[in-house]
């Protein structure tokens, strides 16, 4: 083993001190300093931490850091290397159960600790999943394939296209449902693109993740997995969905349509919300309860359309007051093919950027308008500003969410660079990304503190 592995994470003074006594990581030591003696294991050190301290796991299970310059002696009494092994049991097969494929892309749905960074890293196999969530075996025959091991911010066109193709191959093989484990930060981006790339799927395609990593007893991972696997195995909703906690309580999950969902809180369990509409259904470990009937139904055929294209020369410009036109100019100069603006109100930007938008039009850049209010429609005909912008070739995208518009534009440009065709693709709804009407309960954000809201909150579990 090389030195880097033997003294994982250590450098500078701390590395020198450990080398002097041949104290490799996982050594069981008696370490003496000027003041005290510590008995325990030398742990690897996070690379982001400083070079002056040695980390010891004491017999009580606690870790402490000892300043390397204080070390007077290290006696080595043995070695105890950690093995992060979830008890692995073979996932039982039962001929009557539906077959579900779980694709892993990364994220915290299944994870373990990484000692170099002190962070949580993804891990998963059917045996491990069965070892930690045995309930899954009561729902389906589960198979898993790890497609990628990336945090969700590192997902990109390569992974989106790869995932779509993998799903397509599985559907052709006759799978009853698909679950995709995914980091939550960009889960709604991936849900949108999969909604466009896999059209008219005969089976449910369910995206799932967790907000509290599965290395914690209170994690939402197990319940989210149970809900999503149940949905994939049993539900008759053959759409791309996001399945995540409804309330913060361990009560039920919500099935959100892949093109209408968004992560709305940086850390809450119930972070995903359907925007401008109501969700498809709720799910708990007993049943799946649809909230509407206009979803695409499960079918026995294998007829679906795979459209796996993406051009990443696309950007979202989040408009802010007093924006300079050079923001747009730099994108045009850099050869971007498409721009989605998240405008204010009904879809507006200030006058100084008009000339830049004109230049975009002349350069053949596709420019689309969405609203940064998230709820509501881009209705550019209402005010002069909007009408002027439409004159400059900016196309309003109704109530398409900015991130969804971004994904769709990349997908459209992946198919063609002809602006008319791009426009046709953009304005033809594929999977509910634009809706004709917004029901009044599609915009419900309870305001805390208001007496009637408080009364409601106090009578139900959140």
């Amino acid at each position, binding site marked *: 083993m090389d030195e880097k592995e033997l003294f994982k994470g250590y450098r500078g003074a701390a590395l020198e001190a450990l080398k002097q006594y041949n104290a490799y990581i996982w050594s069981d030591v008696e370490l003496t300093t000027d003041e005290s003696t510590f008995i325990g294991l030398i742990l690897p050190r996070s690379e982001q931490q400083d070079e002056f*301290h040695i980390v010891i796991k004491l017999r009580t*299970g606690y870790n402490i850091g000892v300043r390397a310059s204080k070390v007077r002696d290290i006696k080595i009494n043995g070695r105890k290397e950690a093995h992060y092994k979830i008890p692995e049991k073979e996932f039982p097969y039962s001929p009557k159960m539906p077959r579900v494929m779980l694709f892993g892309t990364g994220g915290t749905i299944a994870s373990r600790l990484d000692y170099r960074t*002190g962070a949580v890293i993804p891990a998963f196999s059917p045996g491990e999943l069965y070892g930690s969530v045995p309930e899954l075996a009561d729902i389906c025959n589960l198979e898993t394939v790890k497609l990628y091991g990336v945090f969700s911010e590192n997902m990109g066109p390569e992974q989106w296209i790869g995932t779509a193709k993998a799903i397509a191959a599985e559907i052709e093989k006759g799978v009853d449902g698909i679950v995709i484990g995914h980091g939550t930060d960009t889960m709604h981006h991936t849900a949108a693109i999969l909604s466009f790339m896999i059209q008219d799927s005969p089976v449910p395609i369910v995206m799932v993740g967790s907000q509290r990593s*599965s290395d914690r*007893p*209170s994690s939402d991972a197990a319940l989210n997995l149970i809900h999503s696997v149940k949905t994939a195995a049993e539900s008759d909703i053959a759409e791309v969905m996001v399945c995540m906690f409804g309330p913060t309580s361990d009560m039920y999950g919500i099935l959100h349509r892949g093109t209408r969902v968004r992560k709305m809180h940086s850390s809450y369990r119930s972070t995903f919300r359907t925007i401008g509409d109501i969700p498809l259904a709720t799910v708990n470990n007993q049943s799946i309860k649809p909230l509407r009937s206009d979803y695409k139904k499960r079918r026995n055929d294998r007829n679906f359309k795979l459209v796996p294209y993406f051009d990443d020369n696309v950007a979202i410009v989040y408009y802010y007051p007093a924006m300079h036109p050079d923001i747009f100019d730099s994108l045009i100069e850099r050869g971007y093919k498409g721009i989605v603006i998240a405008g204010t109100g009904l879809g507006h930007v200030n006058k100084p950027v008009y000339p830049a938008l004109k230049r975009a039009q002349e350069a053949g850049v596709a420019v689309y308008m969405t609203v940064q209010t998230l709820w509501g429609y881009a209705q550019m005909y209402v005010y002069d500003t909007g009408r002027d912008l439409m004159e400059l070739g900016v196309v309003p995208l109704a109530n398409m969410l900015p991130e969804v518009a971004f994904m769709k534009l990349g997908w459209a440009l992946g198919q063609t660079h002809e602006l008319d065709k791009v426009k046709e693709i953009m304005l033809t709804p594929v999977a509910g990304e634009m809706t004709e009407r917004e029901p009044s309960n599609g915009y419900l954000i309870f305001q805390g503190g208001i007496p009637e809201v408080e009364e409601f909150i106090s009578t139900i579990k959140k």
Partner: protein
Amino acid sequence: MNINYFDFDFKPFNLMTPEDYAKVGFKSGLEVHQQLWTDKKLFCRCPAGHYSSNYNAEILRHMRPTLSELGEYDGTALMEFKTKKEIIYRINYDTVCTYEMDDTPPFMMNSNALDIAMEIAMLNNAHIVDEVHIARKQYLDGSIPTGFQRTAIVSVGGALPYKDKQINLIQMSIEEDSCREVSDVGHKRVYITDRLGMPLIETVTQPEMKTPQEVAEVNQIIRKMARSTGHVRTGMGAARQDVNVSVTGGTRIEIKGVSKITKIPLLTYNEAMRQWNLLKLRQELWNRGINAETFSAENADITKLMRKTRCFQISDAIAKGNRVRCVLLHGFKGLLRWQTQTDTYFSREISDRVRVIACLSTLPNIMHSDSMSESIPSSEWSIIKKSIGATENDTIVIVWGDERDSLTGANEIIIRAKEATIGIPSETRQALSDGTNGFERILPGPERMYPDTDLPPIKITQERYDKIKAGLPKSVWIRIKNYQDLGLSEKLSEEIAGSRFADTFEEVVYNLKVDPKYASFILIDFHKRLKKEKLNISVLSHEDYLDIFRNYQSGNILKEGVLHTIRKAMNLGKYSPDMLPKLCVDPELTQIINQAKAEFDRIKIRKPEFKTEILMGITMSKLRGKVKGQEILNLIKD
């Protein structure tokens, strides 16, 4: 070790001598928890020390065991998972934010709390660690919504003087406090979250206490040391301890959450007795030829057999659709009546396990054939015995509940009975009001510790260390000696030194030159009286007291005025200088005296030689605290 446990029988508590405890090898250590006095909680910015049972909302969660960093499941974790509890958290908007609800990652540790912890560690002569690493300690009972407690070692080692020796410390950690349990019935446990996240320290001693009394005395010393900083909380629940007890051949057993130190001697006595008697029980089992290998037990569903039982608990259960199971313990005859603690028998060890692990919390939850006073008629016992094939030497235990719980219960009975052939199972136990203790959960091991990935380690800089060291209050031992030098008794000196008024006392006596006896009367005795009157005695700050004493010493207020002001401030929840009573001076003073004299002349006096005393009585009722008595006396005599 070859010990005949039958050679010694535990005597009643008050007859046990230190020699008796030496004979059984009594050993005890303490884990003393003490809340720190900060404005905010440890890992979020919620206000600290605001308690209320009112709540605005409820959250439902479950706990699942996870792997430790060494890749092992913890025993307790698996036990808690078996219980399948629904956990309800009651949330009050004013005391809890999304951090405590486990919906937001932690904020950086409250640095004020860490400073206080370091201060106390230094007073204990402990070594502060160079880098504080925050760990997660798993708690699957739900007492913390994350499923773990954030905790970190602040210091290692250290020692406290005790009698002619010293008590050595293992370590001190800083950690977040847990929820308060509201109820735990069946599969539902309810917590209120107000206390959750409060900063506290845990001081752990070596197991060096040799008698129950020593445990209590050492506990007092640790508590006083922390209190002498003036930076820890006092009052209900602000200080709690876990007490570890073992006897020769026994196991380290942790009695959790003891809030009254005075309860410790009886609790530790009973635990030592329990271990000794369980070891005796093991010897008896071995004598009967029953050990871990030869142990055998069976369990069967006897619901059908019990359809017509005259035992109302069981017939009620069957009527509700529950199942009845019986467990046959081969060769155990009479042993469920084996005494473990004062008025407590081995059957309680079994009943406790069934209550906690199978969630069968309505008592009685078991019945057994060793007990004469149970409600199953002997004819029914005979039928059960016959059906399961029990002999004269066996014991039968009956348990009832729904399908799953009754099966879990039956299995737990077998597990606990088998453990009796091995020794004392590692458990944490809860203190009961009668001085005995009951099973709480399997003792967690170091496997439940893993690093907190949300927070980086905190380096203790030399600058920070030196600053705290420079401002360190005097050690409680030095204070006691100094106070004795002032002429105070040893007991009173200890009391002041161990109270949060130590600094105030010293400033009042050394700088303001107030008489030490008077200062101690106000700060200790008078405050005790006010506490009895249920007043909040932590209303006034150090500066407030100085202000009052300064006014006293310069003659602006009198002794009576001091008492009056402190009481008034506590009543109003706040001190302000305009509460100080104004001294009564002329012309008002002369006027009151003259009125009194006029009143005296009006009434008929039988003994005119007492005129002065009577006049004093009349005037003092109006002038108490506003004029010195001697001054009034002079005026009256004029």
